């Protein structure tokens, strides 16, 4: 009897690292299976799957940016506003008749500069917590966006500008039908996530981002310029929000004042569901992707089943609490206190 217990315990110990790494993917697979059983004809159809990816395309950029910030034990509340401001700048520049390659690059630069502003504010002004700086810029950036656009939507972009958010990669050469295309935004998500996965896990700067989240004093004592790394992280977060703006411009063909409203909370939620720790130093790019997917599939699935959006809010909130509670249990088993 005792031997059997021991075996079970050692099996647990062997499984733990895998569960810690891939547990969230398991949850994602279960969700996909459940949705497939509930909606066998629609859910896994080409049309619906590409729809899900199109819907999560810009959120996935914000979530990835916020994730990097959370790894440093920080927070960025301004990503939704950065995206809106970048989108508005794009719209204004497009309306002014600038060539498409200028229009495409403006939101990226604008987003980067907004993030740089956050990073410099947090480090140079020695804000007690990034929450405060980015709460301030949440208002500042959205206000600025409305100032430059006059608070009204600006619509109508050229096809080149809309390519990332709206473009289709034809797969008819593979013998598929015309409706079975690949959205460009899906390819973009894959490319951006792979680049950032390599950056965070295989570069010095990426390792230092994790080290700062684990113990900023250790990072400082190791000669790492913590403030410089933080400025880089917030700038990249802004840059990713700028990519989000470019995708959104393509999807909606319009710059509008409510763009990205409360999307910072969705981004944070995706990171938390994906296993990132608010205390910093923990979480994976794959986890964030799973977090974004879980939120996207939940919304999509519930829409397919005609569940009211109020229930969606209740469910997403519950999943956040549940995901973190599972994380707490897992950590209790794995770490010395």
């Amino acid at each position, binding site marked *: 009897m005792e031997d059997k217990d021991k075996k079970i315990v050692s099996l647990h110990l062997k499984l733990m690292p895998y569960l810690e790494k891939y547990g969230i993917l398991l949850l994602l697979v279960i969700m996909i299976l459940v949705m497939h059983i509930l909606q066998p004809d629609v859910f896994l159809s080409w049309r619906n799957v590409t729809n899900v990816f199109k819907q999560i395309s810009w959120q996935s950029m914000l979530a990835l940016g916020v994730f990097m910030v959370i790894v440093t034990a920080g927070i960025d509340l301004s990503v939704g506003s950065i995206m809106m401001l970048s989108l508005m700048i794009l719209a204004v520049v497009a309306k002014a008749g600038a060539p498409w390659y200028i229009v495409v690059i403006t939101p990226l630069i604008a987003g980067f500069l907004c993030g740089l502003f956050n990073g410099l504010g947090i480090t140079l002004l020695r804000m007690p917590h990034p929450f405060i700086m980015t709460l301030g810029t949440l208002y500042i950036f959205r206000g600025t966006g409305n100032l430059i656009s006059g608070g009204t939507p600006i619509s109508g972009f050229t096809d080149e500008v809309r390519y990332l958010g709206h473009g289709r990669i034809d797969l008819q050469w593979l013998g598929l039908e015309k409706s079975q295309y690949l959205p460009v935004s899906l390819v973009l998500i894959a490319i951006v996530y792979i680049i950032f996965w*390599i950056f965070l896990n*295989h*570069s*010095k700067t990426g*390792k*230092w981002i*994790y*080290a700062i*989240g*684990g*113990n900023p*004093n*250790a*990072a*400082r*004592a*190791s*000669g*790492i310029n913590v403030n410089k790394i933080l400025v880089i992280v917030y700038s990249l977060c802004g840059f990713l929000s700028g990519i989000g703006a470019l995708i959104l411009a393509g999807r909606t063909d319009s710059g509008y004042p409510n763009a990205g409203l409360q999307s910072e909370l969705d981004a944070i939620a995706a990171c938390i569901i994906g296993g990132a720790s608010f205390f910093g*130093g*923990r979480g994976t790019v794959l986890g964030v992707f799973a977090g974004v997917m879980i939120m996207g599939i939940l919304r999509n699935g519930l829409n397919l089943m005609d569940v009211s959006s109020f229930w969606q809010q209740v469910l997403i909130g519950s999943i956040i609490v549940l995901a973190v509670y599972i994380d707490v249990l897992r950590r209790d088993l*794995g*770490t*010395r206190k």
Partner: protein
Amino acid sequence: MSSTKNPLLEAKGITKYFGTITALENVNLKVHAGECLGVVGDNGAGKSTLMKVLSGLYKPSAGSLFFQGKEEILESPRDSQNLGLEMVYQDLALAGNLPIGENIFLGREPTKNLGFIKLLDFNKIKELTNAHLDKLKINVKSADQKVEELSGGQRQAVAIARSTAFNAKVVIMDEPTAALAIKEVGKVLDLINSLKKTGVGVIVISHRMDDIFTVCDRVMALFQGTNFAEASLSNTSRDEVIGWIMGKK
């Protein structure tokens, strides 16, 4: 090994103000190769401040540092590390979320080139870590183990391993045994003794007379931010050193 006459590291007239508070006033310190200097003093005597000046974390308000006879100005911990001056902090300064190997090489990771991008060389980190831990006879399950999974003594050993991974000439340890279980203290003290044998100068800050009298060759006491007393271990006694800590000669 350099001659025993010239100190490896010498601090002259170190003074440090924090606003209106004088943390250190005209403090002198020296350590030779292969020697262990014990620094004692009551809380607030300025021991930790002095160590942070030596490691480049604080800039002294006045005074100068000489390393191997040459004056050096330390702008950051990186400068002191480049000289071969390493610090083991009381709070260990390890990132618990990272594995042992990545902690040892934190900030100085070996990389390999993939085209024009530099990527971390995880195999090399592991290889160097295992070799280094073997050299110091530190036993851990694997270099991939996260530091937060280790015991206090193992963490201290990792911190010491980190300080000596890059040809350190002087290692400064702030309360190296303070957080350890009794059976782990001996291991850490053994480690300090083996460091001395390799010609490293060691500075140990400690409250524990046992530590000082086991590994040190010389002991100096700070009192209210100034040099108070100094003697080689053979010319003093526990009671006398305890008296110095309390400001009695």
